[in-house]
């Protein structure tokens, strides 16, 4: 039960968190696995974080997500005597009384003190973990503080405020040290406060993402770019999206491509946009898959290829993205790149969850001609009418007229 982090853990923290863009994430992961096997509890704890998904580790590393394995590793870290492991396990609601019995610490306080000392030694990950214990009120359990502990409500509030506010300085230190996740909690701390104990201070949150971006965290660069885009500062937004993309942020290439595809904040360059989407696709970004599918569908920036568009968009559709539902429906309706299948087309088009005049037109045609649905002229015409100014819908509508008795008939 050493107080200091092992050399392997320090190296892994550097490669996974503090300098995530070095591209040595996979090696660090292997190093942690080895150390964990050798009995290093801190390594097991960090390894568990790596397996917990993009909320806990940078998605750019491409680590697999495995909650079950992560929970097992957390248990293991506690049993291996990692103070950090105890705090992280407690945070994940995995520290059961039985597990607490098995930990090689006299009390939770002892584990906390060790982690706190590690944080004071200057390790950003430890600072983040300890800050979380304050921020999420875990200190109450650690200090065994229940209501009887306090003389009055005011006393309790003062105690809470004193402890919770300790997280602020620690989160900042963690952020500066390279744990960019600290900014998320800081943002929450500043914008929402904490019940009636800590008052919100939104003005302090304003530059958080910018600071993170300037520290070089790709995720923050992307969030900052999004903020800039919303503020209409497109040129700067593109600059930060590009930095995030070059830093390896998976979603960023899709956004860079989108800017070039539509000529936002830069000259339109559809061919370069497609290259960006392809890079995003290599990183597994769903948005890039969609955009590339759209480019293939329209033949913009690349040779038109409906089959390829269908392949890309059906992949994202199966993953739950509805972005390409219209294109998929259209391909099935027209038999572009896939055999004609009106039934399938209808299923895709039903998933279009935005007001799409193109979709209304296709539904109109399906009901008018009885394609994949029972023929229903009035319903088809109602769809065409709801397509608004859609040229083909307007043209098709003119093929019908209402009789004196209000019945729609073909001219």
């Amino acid at each position, binding site marked *: 039960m050493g107080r200091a982090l092992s050399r392997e853990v320090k190296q892994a923290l550097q490669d996974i968190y503090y300098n995530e863009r070095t591209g040595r994430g996979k090696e660090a992961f292997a190093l942690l696995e080895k150390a964990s096997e050798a009995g290093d509890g801190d390594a097991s704890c960090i390894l568990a974080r790596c397996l917990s998904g993009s909320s806990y580790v940078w998605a750019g590393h491409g680590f697999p997500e495995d909650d079950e394995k992560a929970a097992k590793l957390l248990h293991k870290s506690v049993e291996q005597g990692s103070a950090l492991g105890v705090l992280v396990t407690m945070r994940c609601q995995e520290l059961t009384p039985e597990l607490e019995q098995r930990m090689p610490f006299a009390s939770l306080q002892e584990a906390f003190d060790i982690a706190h000392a590690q944080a004071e030694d200057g390790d950003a990950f430890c600072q983040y973990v300890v800050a979380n214990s304050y921020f999420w009120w875990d200190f109450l359990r650690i200090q065994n503080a229940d209501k009887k502990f306090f003389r009055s409500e005011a006393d309790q509030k003062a105690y809470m405020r004193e402890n919770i506010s300790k997280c602020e300085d620690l989160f900042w230190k963690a952020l500066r040290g390279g744990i960019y996740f600290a900014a998320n909690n800081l943002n929450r701390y500043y914008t929402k406060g904490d019940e009636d104990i800590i008052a919100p201070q939104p003005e302090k949150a304003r530059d958080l993402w910018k600071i993170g971006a300037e520290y070089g965290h790709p995720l923050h660069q992307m969030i900052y770019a999004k903020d800039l885009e919303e503020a209409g500062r497109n040129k700067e937004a593109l600059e930060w999206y590009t930095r995030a993309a070059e830093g390896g942020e998976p979603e960023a290439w899709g956004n860079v491509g989108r800017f070039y595809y539509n000529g936002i904040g830069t000259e339109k360059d559809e061919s370069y946009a497609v290259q960006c989407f392809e890079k995003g696709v290599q990183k597994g970004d769903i948005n890039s898959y969609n955009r590339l599918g759209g480019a293939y569908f329209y033949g913009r920036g690349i040779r038109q290829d409906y089959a390829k568009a269908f392949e890309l968009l059906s992949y994202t559709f199966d993953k739950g993205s509805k972005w390409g539902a219209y294109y998929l429906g259209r391909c099935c309706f027209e038999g572009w790149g896939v055999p004609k299948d009106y039934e399938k087309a209808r299923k895709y088009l039903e998933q279009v969850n935005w007001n799409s005049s193109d979709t209304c037109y296709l539904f109109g045609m399906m009901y008018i001609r009885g394609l994949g649905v029972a023929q229903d002229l009035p319903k088809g015409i109602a769809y065409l009418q709801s397509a608004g100014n859609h040229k083909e819908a307007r*043209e098709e509508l003119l093929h019908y007229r209402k009789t004196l008795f209000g019945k729609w008939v073909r001219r």
Partner: protein
Amino acid sequence: MEESGSTENNSKALRFLRWPWNIVIYVLLAVVFRIFAIPLILALTWFQNKQNPHGAAEGYCLSRTRKQLKGVLWSLLFLFIGAALAAFFYVGWKKDHADWDRKDIISLIVSGLGAVVMTILSIYQFYTSLRDTFFPGKSRLAKSIREQLPYPEEAPPVKELFAMVDQDLEENGLWFDSVGIGKEWVLGDMANRIDRIRGIFTVDRIHQHNTQTGIRSYRTLELVLIDNRWKKSVTAFYKPKELQAAAEYLSLKVPGAVCGKNLQYADFLAMDENQRETFERKFMQTKS
């Protein structure tokens, strides 16, 4: 399968009167029943239209030229008016002119000139009606189709000309009142190639004038199409909604064409050579 289809067509063909039997029957009805023949003729016409819409069985164009035969009725009306005016003139001429004032002299001159004009109009109407009906190759419609071709002087015989328009309308035609719009042709009182259309105008005006019994009003509904030689063709409509629908459908087919209402087409026609060239360039750019 094919056989049953053709039997169906034959049985349908029997359900309406083919040219010229329809005319023969109308005339016979008029002779036998006189004024009481009108509702019968109207009912028969409705039935004919229902069974053979727009003259599909005989060909749309040919059917249209044959309909010009009703112009003979107009020519008879003009002739009747002309004769009445001539009679008025003759009686006036025979009278003693000694105590005539200026009003009487003007009446005599107007009736004389009117008689001449109405007679000429009647002859012209009679001639054009018979020409269009019995010599379709010389009809206004055939002429308008020929003019729309790239080399009018090398135009095929009228049968082929009409077949060209008929086939397009049969395959792609949508009908708005009596105007058929296909993929390439618009068939109204005259024919227009769609790719030549540059102006689409609707005329919907109510005219009023005072008569001895009060104010009389009538409505003009017309589709005015102007082509790339700045020639206009006008087709009358019965229903305003159909007129609007036809104009909208054409404007969707020719997005670069100018659309307007009533006398706006006069401004369009009044463009000088330079303006027309600029417009044509712009139109071609929009098209490409």
